C-alpha cells in the first residue's frame, strides 16, 4: 500500500489542497454549533432578536463556505484518485507487455487481467474514500475534541470514558465478525465450485444417474454457507444498535453532568447544547473511521497484488542495444531510429527475404531448460539443426517438451544451458524484435484480435498490400470462408474470434504468419483443428511458398509429419530420434511406438 504511494507524488500539491479544503470544511461544520451556542447564550437569554438574525446570517455564510470547500475538495480528489489509477494502470500494463511467458506462467493470465482491471479499480475506490473520509474523520474527531475541551474541560471527561468504550465495542464486534466474513467467502466459493462442477459435468452426472447425489452435495454447501451467513449477520447486526446506544447514553450523561455544572454556574446552557453536538460529531467521526478499517485491508490486498506485478523483473533481458527498446516501450516516446520499437516494430516485423538465410536456420546446441521451480528439466541436452528449404517436424507425447521447444525459439523463455542460434546468431544477442521479425509463429490455440479479417491478417505484416493479404488467405485455405462472409475481408471478428469456428480461426492465424513471408515458420500443433482434407490442401499450398524457408512443425498426428525431411522425436525432454520417417521406423523404438499407438503401423508396413 505504502509502496504505491509514490505514484501520488505528482499530486502532492493537489492532495495538500484537498487536506486544506477538507480541514476548512470540517472547521465550518464545527463552527456551526459554536454559533448556535452564541444564539442561545447571547441572543435567546437576552431576548436579542437582531443578534439572533445576525448570527443566523453568519451561520448561512459559514455553511455555504463549507459547502464550497467540500466541492473544491471533491473536484481535486476526483482528479487525484482517477489520475492515480490511470497512472498505475498504465504502468502496470506497459510493464506486463514486456513480460516474457515465464512471468505470465508464474502469475497466470487471468490473474494478470484482474490485477490490471479490478484491483486497480479497488484502489481507486479506496483512495477516493480515503481522501474524503480518512482525512475528514480524524479532523472532525480532533477538532470536536478541541472544541469540546475549550467549551468545558471537565465535562469532556465524559468523552474520555465514552470514546474508549466505543472503540472497544467496535473492536470486539469486528474482531468476531471479520474472520467469519472470510469463512463466508470461502463457503461461497464452495457453492460456486459445486455449481460449476455440475455445469461442466452435466453429461457425466446424468449418465451416472447421480442427480440426487449432486443435489445433496449442493444442499450441504448451501446449508453450510447459510449457517455461517446467519451467524455473521447476527454478530454484525449488534454493531449498529450498540453504537447508537453508546451515542445516546453519552448524550444523557452529558446532560446529567452538564446540568450540575450549569447549576453551579460553571457553564452556560448554550454551551451544553453545543457540547452535545460536538460529542455527536466526534462519535460519528469514530464510526466513519471504523468503516475505514474494514475497507483498508481489502485495498491493501489489492495494492499487494498490483505491487507484486510491478516489482517482477522480466526474466528475459535484452542485449545492450535492446535495452533502449524496453525503456522506450515504458515511456512510449519516439525512439532512436536504430532501436526496434513502437514505430519501428512494424519495420522490423517486415521479415527479411528468405534468401538472406544462408546456412542453418535454427540450431539447438545442447539446450537444457526447466520451468522455474520444476524438479525435472522439460528439455535436456537437445541438439538439432533445421535447414532452410526443409520441413522439420517435432513429435512426441504430451509432456515430451514439444511446445516448450518451439517457445524457446522466439525467446519466450531463456535456456538454462546450451544455446539456440537463429540464422547463425545466438537469440540472446539479438533484440527481441530483430529475432521475432524472422519468425512466422502459429500457436496451438489460435488467438485473434478484435478487428476486421484483413486487420487480423495484416497483424503479421502491416505493410502487406490487399493482394498480399488475399494471397496469404488463399494459401491458408481461408479465402473460401472469408468470401462467403457478407463483408468479406472487412468482416468484423468478435473478441476472441467467437464468431468463427476453431478451424477458421486457425486458418486465419496461419494466414497471419504467411503474410509475413518469414524465413522461418513455426507451427505449434496448428493443424489439429483442421479436418483432414483441409490439412492436406494447406500443407500442399504451403510447400510452394516455403521452398526456401525453414519450417518447424510440432504435431500429434503421424500423418502430418510423415513427409517431413526431418523428424525429431522427443521423449521426456530428450531427443530420442532424428531422421526421416523411413529411417526412424528402422532405428527409433519410441517413434515406432507412437506410430503404432495411432494404428498406422500396419499401413506403414504394407
Amino acid at each position: 500500500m505504502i509502496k504505491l504511494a509514490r505514484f501520488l507524488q505528482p499530486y502532492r500539491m493537489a492532495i495538500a489542497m484537498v487536506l486544506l479544503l477538507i480541514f476548512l470544511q470540517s472547521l465550518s461544520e464545527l463552527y456551526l454549533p459554536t454559533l448556535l451556542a452564541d444564539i442561545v447564550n447571547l441572543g435567546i437569554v437576552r431576548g436579542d432578536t437582531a443578534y439572533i438574525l445576525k448570527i443566523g446570517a453568519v451561520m448561512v455564510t459559514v455553511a455555504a463556505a463549507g459547502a464550497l470547500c467540500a466541492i473544491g475538495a471533491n473536484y481535486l480528489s476526483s482528479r487525484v484518485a482517477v489520475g492515480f489509477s490511470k497512472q498505475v494502470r498504465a504502468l502496470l500494463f506497459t510493464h506486463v507487455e514486456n513480460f516474457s511467458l515465464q512471468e505470465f506462467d508464474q502469475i497466470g493470465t487471468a490473474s494478470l487481467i484482474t490485477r490490471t482491471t479490478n484491483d486497480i479499480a479497488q484502489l481507486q475506490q479506496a483512495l477516493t474514500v480515503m481522501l474524503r473520509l480518512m482525512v475528514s474523520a480524524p479532523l472532525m474527531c480532533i477538532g470536536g475534541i478541541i472544541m469540546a475541551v475549550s467549551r468545558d474541560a471537565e465535562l469532556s471527561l465524559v468523552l474520555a470514558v465514552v470514546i474508549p468504550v466505543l472503540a472497544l465495542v467496535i473492536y470486539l464486534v469486528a474482531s468476531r465478525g471479520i474472520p467469519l466474513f472470510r469463512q463466508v467467502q470461502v463457503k461461497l466459493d464452495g457453492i460456486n465450485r459445486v455449481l460449476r462442477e455440475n455445469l461442466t459435468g452435466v453429461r457425466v452426472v446424468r449418465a451416472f444417474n447421480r442427480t440426487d447425489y449432486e443435489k445433496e452435495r449442493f444442499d450441504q454447501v448451501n446449508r453450510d454457507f447459510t449457517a455461517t451467513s446467519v451467524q455473521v449477520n447476527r454478530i454484525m447486526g449488534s454493531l449498529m444498535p450498540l453504537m447508537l446506544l453508546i451515542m445516546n447514553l453519552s448524550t444523557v450523561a452529558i446532560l446529567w453532568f452538564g446540568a450540575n455544572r450549569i447549576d453551579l454556574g460553571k457553564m452556560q446552557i448554550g454551551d451544553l447544547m453545543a457540547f452535545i453536538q460536538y460529542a455527536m460529531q466526534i462519535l460519528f467521526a469514530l464510526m466513519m473511521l471504523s468503516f475505514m478499517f474494514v475497507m483498508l485491508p481489502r485495498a491493501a490486498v489489492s495494492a499487494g497484488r498490483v505491487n507484486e506485478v510491478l516489482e517482477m523483473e522480466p526474466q528475459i533481458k535484452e542485449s545492450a542495444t535492446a535495452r533502449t527498446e524496453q525503456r522506450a516501450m515504458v515511456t512510449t516516446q519516439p525512439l532512436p531510429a536504430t532501436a526496434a520499437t513502437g514505430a519501428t516494430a512494424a519495420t522490423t516485423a517486415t521479415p527479411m527475404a528468405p534468401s538472406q538465410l544462408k546456412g542453418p536456420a535454427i540450431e539447438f546446441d545442447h539446450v537444457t531448460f526447466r520451468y522455474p521451480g520444476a524438479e525435472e528439466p522439460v528439455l535436456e541436452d537437445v541438439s538439432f539443426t533445421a535447414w532452410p528449404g526443409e520441413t522439420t517436424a517435432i513429435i512426441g507425447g504430451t509432456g515430451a517438451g514439444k511446445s516448450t521447444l518451439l517457445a524457446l525459439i522466439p525467446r519466450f523463455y531463456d535456456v538454462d544451458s546450451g544455446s539456440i542460434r537463429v540464422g547463425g546468431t545466438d537469440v540472446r544477442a539479438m533484440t527481441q524484435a530483430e529475432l521475432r521479425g524472422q519468425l512466422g509463429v502459429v500457436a496451438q490455440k489460435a488467438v485473434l484480435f478484435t478487428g476486421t479479417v484483413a486487420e487480423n491478417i495484416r497483424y503479421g505484416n502491416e505493410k502487406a498490400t490487399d493482394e498480399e493479404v488475399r494471397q496469404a488467405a488463399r494459401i491458408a485455405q481461408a479465402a473460401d470462408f472469408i468470401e462467403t462472409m457478407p463483408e468479406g475481408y472487412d468482416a468484423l471478428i468478435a473478441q476472441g474470434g467467437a464468431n468463427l469456428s476453431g478451424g477458421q480461426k486457425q486458418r486465419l492465424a496461419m494466414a497471419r504468419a504467411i503474410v509475413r513471408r518469414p524465413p522461418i515458420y513455426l507451427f505449434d500443433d496448428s493443424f489439429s483443428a483442421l479436418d483432414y482434407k483441409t490439412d492436406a490442401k494447406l500443407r500442399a499450398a504451403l510447400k510452394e511458398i516455403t521452398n526456401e524457408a525453414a519450417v518447424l512443425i510440432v504435431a500429434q498426428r503421424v500423418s502430418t509429419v510423415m513427409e517431413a525431411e526431418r523428424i525429431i522425436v522427443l521423449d521426456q525432454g530428450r531427443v530420442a530420434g532424428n531422421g526421416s520417417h523411413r529411417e526412424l521406423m528402422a532405428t527409433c523404438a519410441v517413434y515406432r511406438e507412437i506410430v503404432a499407438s495411432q494404428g498406422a503401423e500396419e499401413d506403414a508396413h504394407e
Partner: protein
Amino acid sequence: MSEQQRKQNTERSGFSFGGPRPGAAGMPVQKARDFRGTLRRLLHYLRPHRWTLAAVLLTALLSTVFNIVSPKIMGDATTKLFEGMLAKMEGLPGAAVDFPYIHRILWILVGLYGLSAIFGYLQQYLMAGVAQKIVYDLRRDVSAKLARLPLKYYDSHSHGETLSRAVNDVDTINSTLQQSLTQLLTSVITLLGIIVMMLTISPFLTLMILITLPLSAVVAKVVAAKAQPYFVNQQRTLGNLNSHVEEMFTGHAIVKAFGHEAKSIAAFHRINDHLYDAGWRAQFISGMIMPLMMLVNNLGYVLVAVAGGVMVTQRTITIGDVQAFIQYARQFAHPIGQVASIVNVMQSTVAAAERVFELLDEPEDLPEPAKVVKLTAPRGRVCFDHVRFGYSPEERLIDDLNITAEPGATIAIVGPTGAGKTTLINLLMRFYEIDGGAITIDGVDIRQVKRGELHSLFGMVLQDTWLFHGTIRDNIAYACDVASEEAVVQAAKAAHADHFIRTLPEGYDTILNEEASNISQGQKQLLTIARAILADPAILILDEATSSVDTRTEVFIQQAMRRLMKGRTSFVIAHRLSTIRDADLILVMNQGKVIEQGTHDMLLAKQEFYAELYHSQFGSNGSKESTG
C-alpha cells in the same frame, strides 16, 4: 474468471455499518422488465416467513419509535434546566434547578434508549435468520431446477451465464433482504415519526424544515441526471479497457511473436486517457451531491436555530423544544438519502430476481411416463428404429436412421471434427428427445424407462474428463452409493490407474483440486475409465481421443478401454484404425448427419466419403492397402 468472480462476490457480500450500500449517485441502475410480476413472485418466497417478518416489522417499529420519542423528552429536561437557570438569574426566591425532575427524565431516556437498542438488535437477529433462509430456499430451487433442465439448456447457455444467475444474482437478493429491506423499513418509520414529532413541537418550524425537503430532492435529481451520461461513458470506456487488457494478455505470446507490444501499449494509453476523462467527471459530479445535500441540511439547521431562537424570546416555544427540533432536523436528511438509494438497490434486486426466475422458468425435461417399464438384467441390444431428429425444427439432421446393435457389438462413429458425433449419444441417453421413430434397448422404448434407470445402463468415458473436487476414491466410486475398498482398487487396477494412484502422496485419499491439475490429463482419463469399470454398465459410450497424452499412458488407456469394452455393447467415437476396422458397424457422420453406415470393407468399396476420409487420415499407405 473465477478470480474475477470472487472479487465481485467480495464486494457484494461486503457488509456496511447500516448505511446504504456504497454506489455513487447517478450510476445507471439495471431495471427489471416486469417489475411488478417479479416483485410479487419474490414476495412469494417471503410468505412462509410472514410471522417472523411481522415480528421484524414490530421490533423495527418499536426500536425506531423509542429512538424518535427520546429527543423530545430530552428537550423537556433541557427546558427545565433552562427555566431553573432563568429563574435563578432573575433572582427569584427559592429558585433552583429541578434536579429530581431532570434526573427522572434522564433515567426514562436511558430506559428508552436501552429498549430501542434491544429491539434494534432483535430485528437484525430475526432478519438474519429469515433472509438467509429465504436465499437458501431460492438457491435450493435453482439447484433442483438445474437437475431437471434438459441438456439442450446447457448446450445453449454458457456456464458463466448460468453461474452468474445462480450465484451473483442470488447474492444480490441476499444482501438486499439482509440490509436494504430493514433499512427501508426503519427509514420510512423514522421519516414519518420525525415529521409527527416535529409537528407536535411546532408546526411552524416543521414547515421551515419541509421547505428544504423539495430543495434537496431537486439537488439530488439534477446532479444525478447530470452525472448519468458521464457514468454511461465511463462504463463503456471501462468495458473497452477491460476487453483490450483481456485480449492483449490472453494473446500475449502472439503480440510478442509479431512484435506488436508498442502498438498494444499505444492503444491502451488511448483508452486509458479516455477513461480518466470520463471517470473523474463522473466522480466529481456525483460527489457534489453529498456537500450540496449537507448545505441544504445546514440551511435548515440555521433556519430552525434562528426562527426557534426568535420564538423562544417570544415565549412561543421552549428552549428544550428547539434543541429537540435541531436533533430531529439533523436526523431528517439521513433517512431521505437512504430511501433514495434503496429505491435504486431495489430496482437492481428485482432485475436480479427476474434473471433468477427466468432460469427457474426454463422448459424442463418431459415428465416421466405414468407407467414405467423396469429393465431387469439388461443385455444391451440397442435399436434405432426410423429415428428422426433435428436440434431445431427447421433443420432435420437425422432422417429415418435404422441401426441394430447386438449385445456386445462395437459401433464406431467416425467423421471430421464438428461432424456432430455426440448427437447420437445425446439421443441414446435421451439427453434430447427424438422427433419421430423410436430407440429401444432390449426391445423397450427408452421413453418408457425412468431416466435415472436408463442412464444407469450406460457407462461413459469422454475425452473431456470430468472429475470433481474430492478424493480419488470418491471419484472412482462416483457411480455407486457404496463401493468396497476392494472393488475400487480392482477397478483402478483394471484401468491401469492403481500404480500411479499409489505413487501419489496420499494414494486413494489424494484430493483432486478444482481443475484436477494435480494429476495429468492421461491419468484423469484412466480414472474416468476406472469409474466406468466400477459402474459395470451394459452399454458403453467411449471417446477414444487421447490427443494430449504421452505415448505410454496412451497404450495403457487403450488396453484399459479394450478390457472395458469386452462383452458390452459399445458406441465408440473412434480415432483409431484398429477400432474402426474391427467395429461391427461404422457410422460416418458429416455436418451433423449420418451419411454412410456399414462395415469397414463395405464402406471402402463404396469409394465415397468414408474412403476419402480414411485415406486422408491415414495417408497414402492407407490407399495402398485398399487398392492392394
